[in-house]
């Protein structure tokens, strides 16, 4: 059994790696498709005038060699986590991204957990009170949040809670100038996390709530629910013991698929709240036209999604006994 699971995971991992390989190749050709000299494209706005740096890039990526050789060099570099150097920060792209990774993981992780818990809860309540006022209220709220642009919501939230009410910080991950340690530091980061995580999470809360509600209602029409009712079970217990678990399966699938969107959303939230993660890094790279860094962030965030999907797959086959390994 456990060997089967390992084999399954291995199979999935191989698939994920293949996806990443394709993305790497895609990145490679994208740089070449961009207008202008690839070295200048890679170097970014700031580095494009530094002839020494450009030469260094040309050598590192073999830019004066034939295309297939360049591809080989590129893939080989990627395999060694070598994505080149950013001119402005004078740092390897990979290190820079990894430096920012924890902040993004914290933000997206918090938003993910928050939205999943809140969304599923709201969806369950709405389904349990189908066609009554809590259902309508939740449905309307979900619709509104589903329609609201994330970045705008983030701005309005910071306007309200930071500027007017002054309850929460609207900027960065830690208080500037303070050097907290231990629990104080955790608390400080926590306070800074509230607004970004909440605004990023709200959109996905809406997504999960709608999905859970639909799934619950559909599941509650299945035959085995009738069986449970015929046992003389209380409706609330039927909902909890029989409907919920079955209804959550599609939500798990969706949650995995949404991982990519969560990272996309992080670009916007991190930009608004100056959260020092890879999303913010992406925005900076855009600003400085540092395409090598941009593609690096893109690649790493894709890798995160692959990993996320792998985790979802594993969770799925643990939750659903019908999945044959």
């Amino acid at each position, binding site marked *: 059994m456990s060997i089967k699971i390992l084999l399954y995971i291995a199979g999935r991992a191989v698939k994920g790696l293949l996806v990443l390989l394709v993305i790497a190749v895609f990145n490679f050709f994208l740089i070449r498709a961009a207008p202008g000299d690839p070295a200048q494209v890679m170097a970014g706005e700031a580095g494009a005038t530094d002839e020494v740096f450009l030469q260094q890039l040309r050598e590192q990526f073999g830019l004066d060699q034939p295309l297939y050789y360049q591809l080989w060099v590129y893939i080989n570099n990627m395999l060694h986590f070598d994505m080149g150097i950013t001119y402005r920060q004078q740092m390897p792209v990979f290190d820079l991204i990894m430096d920012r990774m924890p902040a993004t993981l914290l933000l997206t992780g918090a938003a993910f957990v928050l939205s999943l818990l809140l969304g599923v809860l709201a969806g369950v309540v709405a389904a349990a009170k189908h066609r009554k006022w809590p259902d309508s209220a939740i449905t309307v709220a979900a619709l509104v949040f589903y329609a609201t*642009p994330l970045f705008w919501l983030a701005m309005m939230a910071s306007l309200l809670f930071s500027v007017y009410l002054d309850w929460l910080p609207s900027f960065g991950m830690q208080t500037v100038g303070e050097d907290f340690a231990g629990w104080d530091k955790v608390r400080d980061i926590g306070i800074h996390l509230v607004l970004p995580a909440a605004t990023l999470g709200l959109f996905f809360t809406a997504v999960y709530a709608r999905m859970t509600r639909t799934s619950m209602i559909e599941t509650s029409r299945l035959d085995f629910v009738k069986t449970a009712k015929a046992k003389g079970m209380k409706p609330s217990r039927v909902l909890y013991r029989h409907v919920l678990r079955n209804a959550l399966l599609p939500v798990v699938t969706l949650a995995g698929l949404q991982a990519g969107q969560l990272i996309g959303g992080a670009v916007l939230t991190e930009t608004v709240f100056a959260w020092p993660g890879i999303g913010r890094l992406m925005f900076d790279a*855009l600003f400085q036209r540092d395409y090598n860094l941009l*593609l690096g962030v893109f690649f790493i965030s894709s890798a995160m999604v692959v990993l996320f999907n792998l985790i979802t797959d594993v969770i799925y086959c643990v939750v659903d006994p019908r999945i044959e390994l």
Partner: protein
Amino acid sequence: MNIIKTLSQNKVAMVGFAVLVMLILVAVLGPYVYEGTPWKMVQRPFIPPFENSSYLLGTDILGRDVLAGLIYGTRISLLVSFVSTVIALLIGIPLGAYAGYFGGWVDEVLMRFTEIFQTVPSFALAIVLVAIFEPSVYSITGAIALVSWPPVARLVRGEFLRLRNQEYVLAAKLNGQSNRNIILKEILPNSLSPIIVLASLMVATAILLESSLAFLGLGDPEIMSWGYMIGSSRTVIRQAWWLSFIPGVAIAVTVLALNLLGEGLNDALNPKLSGKRES
């Protein structure tokens, strides 16, 4: 037809529909009412809304007319989102149809391909594409289309997988009908309803994507858009919150209207969830 009747009885969907029609009218007729360009500085900056009767919604940081910007923004939002959705459908439908209908290795290859696109974080991909190909209406529309088609392909594939073994399709095979005929005349018409519903939701998502790109500075520099209006007034949010507030409301209302219409279509076309069950 029946569907239109059912839909017209759904008040919420009709509200969405009405708002959408109004927005389309604004997009089409707006430029005739507000001649010239929304980029023109017309007055002193930072006039709040409802203060100056000729600039109803006030002016922005550079003294440009907010209402004019809003009207021109409607155009670009609707144009980009509709066109990108159509392109996404044109990619997704044939791909999904072939994969679902032929199955086997065709399906395997096409679905692996789709999976890659689905794995890649779509917004990040859109950013990369627009950035590298320089922001323009074309690159934005193309990028949005390129990140939006995978769900279409998956949906259509699912429908085709379900319908290809329906007995009327088998009967068409026994009739000696060509695959092309079977796909176009037997299966596709019967899988249209979920595609229509998905398309209406895709337009909504595309509007959000377009505005997000513009917010990050990846809008067409020639064209005024809602996302750009919010992005450019981000730094002055403390002084003039309405400059970011108003276009945001416009986006939310548009997307909401589309979602309501989509929900209504879903209820009318797929009565499974609408609660009216046969006994």
